[in-house]
């Protein structure tokens, strides 16, 4: 399984993401935002957390218009897998690959702690390792994680089983307690919590491991 981690100026979870993917068995390359193309034969593009371009204008807005993001959009439109975590989720909404937007947290504070997540669907490569309805703990670290979309979009996401994760105790005001959503073809996942920070024993929590393991299993067999 060939994975790429995209690095923007201000990304700060790129190495953690690369380590989690490598330890899960992926062949990982880090690509720079100015690259106009992805390496050939890439299965998964991971867009890591951080503060790309200093969050100037809006979180993810400048990154979404960088050369590499055109290639990421093409990859997704061709049926490729894309995982966006935290700032990566914000970037994916800005590119239009995922609906909605991430607003400032309702309580205005930057929140950095482990939160409870409910697995809403096991019908995706990312969540097939979990039982739908089960709960896991994954860290969040964000100032703008308050998921917003209009009523019709929220209803569609819920109706089509495209809400991957919800918060068990909503920390940021997200509509429908939404913590992560899938694209229509279920191959693009955006989520605010950081599974790569709940990956190995040294993290004190390995609840995120199964997300990567599921992805590996699905992509290895593809």
């Amino acid at each position, binding site marked *: 399984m060939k994975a790429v981690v995209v690095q923007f100026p201000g990304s700060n979870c790129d190495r953690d993401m690369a380590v989690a993917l490598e330890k899960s068995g992926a062949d990982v390359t880090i690509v720079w935002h100015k690259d106009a193309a992805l390496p050939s034969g890439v299965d998964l593009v991971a867009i890591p957390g951080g503060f790309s371009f200093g969050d100037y*204008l809006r979180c993810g*807005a400048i990154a979404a218009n960088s050369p590499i993001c055109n290639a990421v959009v093409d990859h997704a439109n061709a049926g490729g897998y894309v995982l966006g975590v935290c700032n990566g989720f914000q970037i994916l909404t800005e590119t239009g690959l995922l609906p909605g*937007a991430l*607003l*400032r947290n309702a309580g205005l504070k930057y929140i950095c702690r482990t939160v409870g997540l409910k697995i809403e669907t096991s019908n995706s490569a990312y969540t097939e390792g979990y039982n739908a309805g089960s709960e896991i703990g994954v860290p969040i670290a964000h100032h703008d994680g308050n998921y917003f979309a209009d009523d019709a979009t929220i209803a569609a996401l819920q109706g089509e089983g495209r809400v991957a994760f919800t918060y068990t105790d909503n920390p940021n*005001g997200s509509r429908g307690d939404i913590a992560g959503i899938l694209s229509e073809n279920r191959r693009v996942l955006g989520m605010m919590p950081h599974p790569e920070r709940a990956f190995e024993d040294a993290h004190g929590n390995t609840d995120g491991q199964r997300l990567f393991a599921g992805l590996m299993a699905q992509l290895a067999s593809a």
Partner: protein
Amino acid sequence: MKARVHVMLKDGVLDPQGAAVKHALGALGFDGVDGVRQGKVIELDLADGATEAQVGEMCEKLLANTVIESYRIEVL
């Protein structure tokens, strides 16, 4: 040509920063404030020949996120 772009959160989109400013004004004794919405202003210094339509395109593509924000262009 100069243009000024006003970007505001759409009605119905929660504005926690505006709410915090309203609260702070209340704490200072300004009781007559029923609501505060916070937005941003972007000033563009444009080359000759630039058009308002081009500024509109800039807003759609980058300056505003029309999922949550509305914009208004003022040509100066």
